[in-house]
C-alpha cells in the first residue's frame, strides 16, 4: 500500500509545483518588467508605440530621423498598428504603451478616463495634433463611375468601401465628412443623417476593421469607391496601384492626436519623441509622406501638394468630439451608430 500513496503524493506535489510555477512565472514576469526596463534605460530605451493603422508610413520615416537626433540616440521602437478604437481599448485594457497616436480624439479620451494619459495631454499649441489630413474619395483609375462629389456615391449600383465605425477612426471621419456637408455643419441634422443612412444601407457592403484594411479590400477588387484619408490615397497612388483620388469640394479636416502615457517607464524619451513630431524637420518628413503638417511655415511650403478644398468642416464646427461622439457614434445611442447597426445587423 505504501508505494501507491508515495506515487500519489509525488504526483500531487508535481502538480502543485507545476501550477505554482505557472502562476509564479506570470507574477515574476511583471515584477521583473520595471527592473529590466530600468536596466535598458541606462544604455538604450524602448518606446512602445500604439497607433492607428495608416500612419505607419509616416512613422517609418520619422522614427529613423528621431533616432539621429540627440534625444533619440539609441532609442528603440516597438510598434503596433491597428484599428484605432481596437488599439485604444487594448492600451486601456493594460497593453504596455509609452506613446499613442490614434485617428480620433475619443480614443485618447478613453485613456484619460482610465487614468493612463494626463488630462492636459492636448495643452500644446497644436492641441496634441501633430498631423492631419482630409477625407477624400478614392476611385478606380480613370474614374469609370464619374464620381466627383458626395451625391455621386448614392447613384444606383455604386458600392462604397469604408471601415466599421465601431473599431475604426477612419470610418468616423469618412461618415462625418458627408454628414457635415449635407447638414451644413450640423445645422440640418436630419438631412445629414438621411445621407448617411442612404449611404450605409444601400452602398456599403463590407465592414473592414480599419482604414488600412479598407484600402486592402478596395485594392483587392471590392467596391467602386473607397472613402479614406488623403494621406492613404497619396500612399497607394505612390505605390503604383491603379487608383486615383477626388477630393470633393466640401469635405472634412482630419486631426489625428498623439499623446504620451503618464505612467510610461520612458517618460522622458517618449515626451522627447512626441515633441520631435512638431519640429519643422519632422513636419516636413510627414508632409512628404502625405500627411498635412500642422506647422504653419511647413504647411505653406507644401501648400501645392495639399490643395485647400472649397469648404473644409472641422470637428470644432460640429461642437467638438465630446458632443459628436455622444450624439452620433456612441453605441446604441448615437444616431449614426444606430443607423449603422440597423443596416449591418
Amino acid at each position: 500500500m505504501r508505494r501507491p500513496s508515495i506515487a500519489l503524493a509525488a504526483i500531487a506535489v508535481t502538480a502543485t509545483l507545476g501550477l505554482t510555477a505557472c502562476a509564479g512565472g506570470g507574477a515574476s514576469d511583471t515584477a521583473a518588467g520595471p527592473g529590466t526596463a530600468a536596466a535598458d534605460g541606462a544604455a538604450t530605451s524602448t518606446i512602445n508605440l500604439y497607433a492607428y493603422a495608416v500612419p505607419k508610413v509616416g512613422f517609418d520615416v520619422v522614427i529613423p530621423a528621431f533616432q539621429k537626433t540627440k534625444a533619440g540616440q539609441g532609442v528603440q521602437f516597438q510598434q503596433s498598428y491597428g484599428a484605432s478604437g481596437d488599439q485604444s481599448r487594448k492600451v486601456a485594457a493594460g497593453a504596455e504603451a509609452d506613446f499613442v497616436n490614434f485617428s480620433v480624439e475619443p480614443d485618447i479620451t478613453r485613456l484619460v478616463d482610465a487614468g493612463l494619459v494626463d488630462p492636459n495631454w492636448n495643452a500644446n499649441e497644436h492641441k496634441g495634433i501633430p498631423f492631419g489630413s482630409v477625407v477624400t474619395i478614392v476611385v478606380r483609375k480613370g474614374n469609370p463611375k464619374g464620381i466627383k462629389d458626395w451625391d455621386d456615391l448614392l447613384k444606383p449600383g455604386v458600392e462604397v468601401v469604408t471601415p466599421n465605425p465601431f473599431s475604426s477612426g477612419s470610418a468616423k471621419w469618412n461618415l462625418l465628412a458627408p454628414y457635415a456637408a449635407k447638414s451644413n455643419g450640423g445645422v440640418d441634422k436630419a438631412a445629414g443623417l438621411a445621407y448617411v443612412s442612404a449611404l450605409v444601407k444601400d452602398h456599403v457592403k463590407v465592414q473592414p476593421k480599419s482604414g488600412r484594411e479598407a484600402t486592402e479590400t478596395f485594392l483587392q477588387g471590392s467596391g467602386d469607391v473607397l472613402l479614406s484619408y488623403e494621406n492613404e490615397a497619396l500612399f497607394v497612388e505612390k505605390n503604383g496601384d491603379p487608383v486615383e483620388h477626388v477630393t470633393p469640394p466640401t469635405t472634412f479636416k482630419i486631426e489625428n492626436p498623439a499623446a504620451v502615457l503618464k505612467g510610461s517607464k520612458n517618460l522622458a524619451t517618449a515626451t522627447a519623441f512626441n515633441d520631435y513630431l512638431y519640429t519643422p524637420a519632422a513636419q516636413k518628413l510627414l508632409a512628404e509622406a502625405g500627411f498635412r503638417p500642422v506647422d504653419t511655415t511647413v504647411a505653406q511650403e507644401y501648400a501645392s501638394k495639399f490643395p485647400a478644398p472649397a469648404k473644409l468642416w472641422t470637428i470644432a464646427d460640429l461642437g467638438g468630439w465630446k458632443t459628436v461622439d455622444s450624439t452620433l457614434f456612441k453605441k446604441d445611442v448615437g444616431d449614426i451608430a444606430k443607423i449603422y447597426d440597423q443596416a449591418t445587423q
Partner: protein
Amino acid sequence: MTSDLDQQRGGPRPETDAAPLPPRPGATASDGIRRHGGDPAARGETSGGASRRARHGKGLRGLRRPLGIGIVTLWLSVIVLLPLAALTVAAFDEGLAGFWEAITAPAALASLWVTVLVSAVVALVNAVLGTLVAWVLVRDEFRGKRFVNAVIDLPFALPTIVASIVLLSLYGPNSPIGVELNATRWGLVVALLFVTLPFVVRSVQPVLIEADREVEEAAASLGATTWTTFRRIVLPTLAPAILSGTGLAFARAIGEYGSVVLIGGNIPRETQVASQYIQQQIEIDRPLNAAAVSVALLAIAFVTLLLLRVVSSRSQRREERDA
C-alpha cells in the same frame, strides 16, 4: 502516419468508451481510425481501456484506476471543460434573452448559415474525392506515389494563413489563370477544401490497405459487376472511415479562420463565416455577441461529432451482427 497504419486491423472491434475529441490538426485522422477498429492495446490510455484492465487487475493496477481517472478529469477540465464553461457563462451574461438576441441578429444568423452551407459542401466533396484519392494511393502504382502521399499532409503542416495567401495568389485579383474566386463562396469552398483534404484520405487509406481483396475477387468471380462489387463489398467496409473523415472535415471547416480570412472577402451575409463574425464582434467591442455565436458554433460542432459517433457505433454493431 505509419504507426497508425500498424495499429489498424481489419474487422469489427468492440467500441471504446473514449469521447469524441475535438478535431486537432495532425492527430485527428488517427483518432478517426481508432474509433472504428484500432488495436485495444493502442488505445489503452483511454479511461475505458484503463477501467477495463483495472476490472481484471489486482493490487497496483487496481489503484491506478482512480488516479488515472482523476488526472484525466483534471487535465480535461483545465484544458477543455472549464474554458468552455467560462465561454458559455460569458454568452449568457445578459440572460437568455441577450443570448437569443445575439445569435438571431440577421448578420449572425447569416454567418452561421454561410458557415454550415459551405462546410457541408466541402464535407461532401471531401467524402467523394478523398475516398478516390485514398483509393488511387492504395490500389494504383505510379511514379511519384510517395511524393503525392507526402503532399496530402501538407495542408496540415502549412499554417492556414499561408494557405490563404497561396490561394489568393492563384485565384485572387489578376489571377494568372484567369479564375477570380476571392470574395465569393466558391473561394471559401476552395480554401476549406485545401485545409480539410487530409481528413477523409487519411481515414480511408488504412482501412483500404487492410481490406481483404480476396473477397472482392470472389465477388467478381461469382459474376458481380465492378459497380456491384464496389457497392456491396468495398463501400460497406469503407463507410465508417469515410463517415468519420467527412465528419471531422466538417467540424474543422466550420471553425476555420486563417485559410478564409484573405480569400473570403468577409462580406457580411455573403461570405462572412462565423469565425470572422466572432472576430469582428470582438474588434468592435461586443464580446457578448462573439461569445454567443461561439457557443452556437460549439453546439454545431458537438452535435456533428455526437451524430458521427452514434452512426458509426450503429454501423459497427451491424457489422458485428453480420460477421
